[in-house]
């Protein structure tokens, strides 16, 4: 009996030795920053002088900051259009790339190539190719008689350009679809064939329903990630022109890091956090197959 508790204790200690790195990491790089960030959001703070308590002022003031409301709208527009649109387009791309044809792997690699290109390089490249004067795309559009566009440098087209640019990276969602198609057991397709289902019928009644859970999860995770879009905004447009591509993450960076208004920026960050938490809760409420499920064995 005593031996048993001793073994148990030893096992628990060993267990925590293995979990130690992640526990330290959680405490230092997640919990502590969360608490600090929440506290900062009620203060005026610049990382030099001590924080001054201002209550809810930041949560009020942020709405009157230039481009803030615009940024909130932009963030939503970007995330809720680019992610579903990307998943939708890449579905058809993946269907084509799922065909059992010679050389299909080469095509998969070609469509995936833009994803591998580092965001910094691809941002610089795209800025140049879509330039009003020197851009190759304007040469093509002019030749087609479509006229010349300012793309990223016009308030009217900048956000649209950013969304189209995000589609260039749809290779990653294509891979997710392909993996989803593969996970559908062949028996379903055989049954569909025996039942006399054509390719379109099989697609709608077998492939789509069978892959929906994975895709729905990816849709929500994709939106959550896109709500934090920063790098393309920073590299390509710097939030401009006139705030037309400014996003929440870009605002938080600008206010927190450039202007050193860390309290105000923290309030903005918590605003974003609440939105993301609401979305996440929505996922858990509607689905029981999310990651936690695997935690019990």
């Amino acid at each position, binding site marked *: 009996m005593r031996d048993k508790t001793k073994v148990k204790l030893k096992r628990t200690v*060993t*267990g*925590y030795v*293995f*979990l130690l790195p*992640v*526990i*330290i*990491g*959680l405490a*230092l*790089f*997640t919990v*502590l*920053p969360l608490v600090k960030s929440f506290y*900062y959001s009620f203060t005026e703070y610049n*990382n030099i002088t001590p924080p001054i308590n201002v209550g809810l002022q930041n949560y009020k003031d942020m709405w009157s900051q230039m481009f803030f409301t615009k940024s909130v709208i932009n963030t939503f527009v970007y995330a809720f259009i680019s992610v579903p649109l990307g998943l939708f387009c890449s579905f058809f791309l993946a269907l*084509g*790339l799922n065909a059992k*044809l010679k050389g299909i792997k080469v*095509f998969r690699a070609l*469509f*995936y190539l*833009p994803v591998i*290109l*580092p*965001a910094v*390089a691809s*941002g*610089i*490249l795209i800025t*140049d*190719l879509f330039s009003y*004067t*020197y851009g*190759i795309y304007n*040469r093509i559009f002019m030749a087609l008689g479509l006229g010349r566009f300012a793309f990223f440098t016009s308030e009217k087209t900048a956000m649209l350009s950013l969304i189209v640019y995000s589609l260039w990276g749809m290779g*990653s969602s294509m*891979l*997710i679809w392909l*993996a989803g198609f593969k996970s559908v057991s062949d028996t379903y397709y055989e049954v569909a064939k025996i039942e006399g289902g054509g390719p379109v019928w099989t697609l709608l009644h077998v492939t789509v329903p069978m892959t929906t859970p994975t895709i729905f*999860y*990816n849709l929500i995770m994709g939106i959550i*990630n*896109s*709500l934090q879009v920063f*790098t393309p905004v*920073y590299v390509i447009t710097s939030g401009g022109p006139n705030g037309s591509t400014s996003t929440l*993450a870009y605002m938080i*960076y600008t206010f*927190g*890091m450039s202007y050193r208004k860390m309290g105000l920026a923290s309030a903005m*960050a918590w605003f*974003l*956090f609440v939105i993301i938490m609401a979305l996440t809760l929505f996922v858990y409420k509607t689905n029981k197959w999310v*990651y*936690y499920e*695997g*935690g019990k*064995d």
Partner: protein
Amino acid sequence: MTSSVKRRRRIFAATVYAILIVGAAIFCFPIFMLLSRSLMTTVESTVVPAKFFPSVLQWHNYVDIFKAVGTLEGTSYWWLWFKNTAVLEVMVIAGTVLSSVWVAYGFTRIKFPGRNFVFAVVMGTMMIPSTVTMIPLYTIFSDLNWLNTLHPLIWPMWCGGGAVNIFLVVQFLRTLPRELNESARIDGANEFKIFFRIVLPAAVPILTAVGVGAFVGVWNDLVNPLLYLNTKDMWTLALGVSTLNVNVGEIGGIPYVFAACTIFSLPPIVLFTFAQKYFIESVVMSGIKG
């Protein structure tokens, strides 16, 4: 009958090929332009309307760019940026790979109270936007005197390498037969021996995927270097390249910037060619990045 089926098949294949070729051409056109414009003269790159091809391939752009960013006490900034990136790569890959499997071992192979709770909390952190922790992390690293050093980019990755990687390795370890542990325990091996002798070697496939993901993550990361690395000598390649566009004039024109972008893009592309399987695994498992 069979010939009509065959014909229909051939038409189907031809249609798919045609669509894919057009699509791939559209998708790869910008990359073609990256190469093309990197080989132009500066004057050519500013011609209106823009040119598709350089008239003479200016290969020397790829040499000249190495002299274009200036030096610090005789050492090129390129070399300094490369060195910083290399140090980061080694330290982050090592930290991510080792600590993720170490932690995952605790989550899967040993049963003890509190284990599932910690796992749930770790998975929950996936939902915390990095923008929320950005500012306090900055102040914490500032208090530690870690600003303008590589420490803020390295040590957090030694704490399990992030929820996604922990999850990936945990899922993998669950597929390993439990008997491996049991028989080793009967032979008198303790958990640490089992970890190093049995589980670590068995986890190499998933750890390769995690390592490839970590490599690309560091290589492409702009946000963290931007936050923590202030002086030019401490920058990474990604941060250095991102500034070229701002000083196009100083650099000598777009062709030089594009030559740098091409060289900078090569390592991930080469890695992808050789480790496609692992690369794809890490993408499919971790989902779409924003």
